[in-house]
């Protein structure tokens, strides 16, 4: 039981941290208002599902002999790994492009100076 409570506290703490970070991103205009609202909702829904996982089973019943929460957890973990992989690659590609631009710009400066 204690473990369950610790996990709940951790989830609540993490959610509030993420809400705060999302709010900061909206304030610093990294996320626009609508994107910010969507992320805030995602955090709140995640918080609710994490604290009261069995509530979902009351809404959706499965005939597979396992709870909907179990299926959704597995799917969520798998989806998260796919998303992380996608963004990891995306960031790598962007990083390489930025590196290339900065390096070629710095070389261009040398050749421009030689021309002048």
């Amino acid at each position: 039981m204690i473990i369950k409570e610790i996990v709940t506290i951790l989830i609540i703490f993490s959610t509030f941290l993420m809400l705060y970070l999302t709010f900061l991103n909206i304030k610093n205009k990294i996320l626009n208002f609508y994107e910010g609202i969507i992320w805030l909702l995602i955090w709140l829904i995640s918080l609710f599902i994490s604290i009261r996982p069995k509530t979902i089973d009351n809404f959706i019943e499965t005939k597979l002999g396992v709870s909907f929460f179990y299926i959704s957890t597995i799917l969520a973990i798998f989806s998260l790994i796919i998303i992380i992989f996608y963004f990891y690659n995306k960031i790598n590609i962007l990083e390489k492009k930025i590196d290339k631009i900065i390096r070629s710009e710095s070389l261009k400066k040398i050749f421009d100076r030689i021309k002048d």
Partner: protein
Amino acid sequence: MFDNFLIAIPAFNEEKNIEKLIINLIKKFKHIIVIDNCSSDKTYEIIKKLPIIFTKHEFNLGKSLSMKTCFDYAEIKNFKYIAYMDADGQHNVNDLIKLCKKIEEKNLDAVVGYRNNLKELNFKKRIGTLILEKIFKLLYKKDIKDIQSGLRVLKVSMLEKIRWESKGITHYFADAEITCKLIKNNSKIEQLPIETIASEPYKGMNIIQGIFLMIKLFSWRLTR
């Protein structure tokens, strides 16, 4: 003298040492390039006033990519050799001359300097360097001292074989990665002892980075 050589110096926040180093180098070398890696001090203002080739990365890309920019320049300008030197003034210009003469005389692919005064280093740095050397020998079957030495001369035509990938948090590993790739490609490589002048407190790797470098030594051995 040394017309075929490009002396490449990646610099980051080296306002205290860079001018003295360049002044010493100008006396002996014709082609010197300094890449300022978005320093927050006056490094760029200082190098602008000196009769050298200079440029600046608009964002800090780390030592590794600054070295690559130098290499790109050497390739475009058809230099035969490129010599890397640290900007903190820890290397002696006379040692660089020795390395340059050696690579030219013996038509080598690379000459790497190794610190012969390891005993003067602090315990942590000395042990770290020795462990890395032993692991390197075990993996690559070659006795190379000081695999991370920042003072080295390379043949520009070697680029395709030694194209290094270290960057970001591993940007300090570029020197070690180049050494590994040189050995893996059976390059003609020799070493010469060099002096190091400690101008300021050691800024190198910590223990975590050292362990990470060991892991990288394994991965470079397994990959191309």
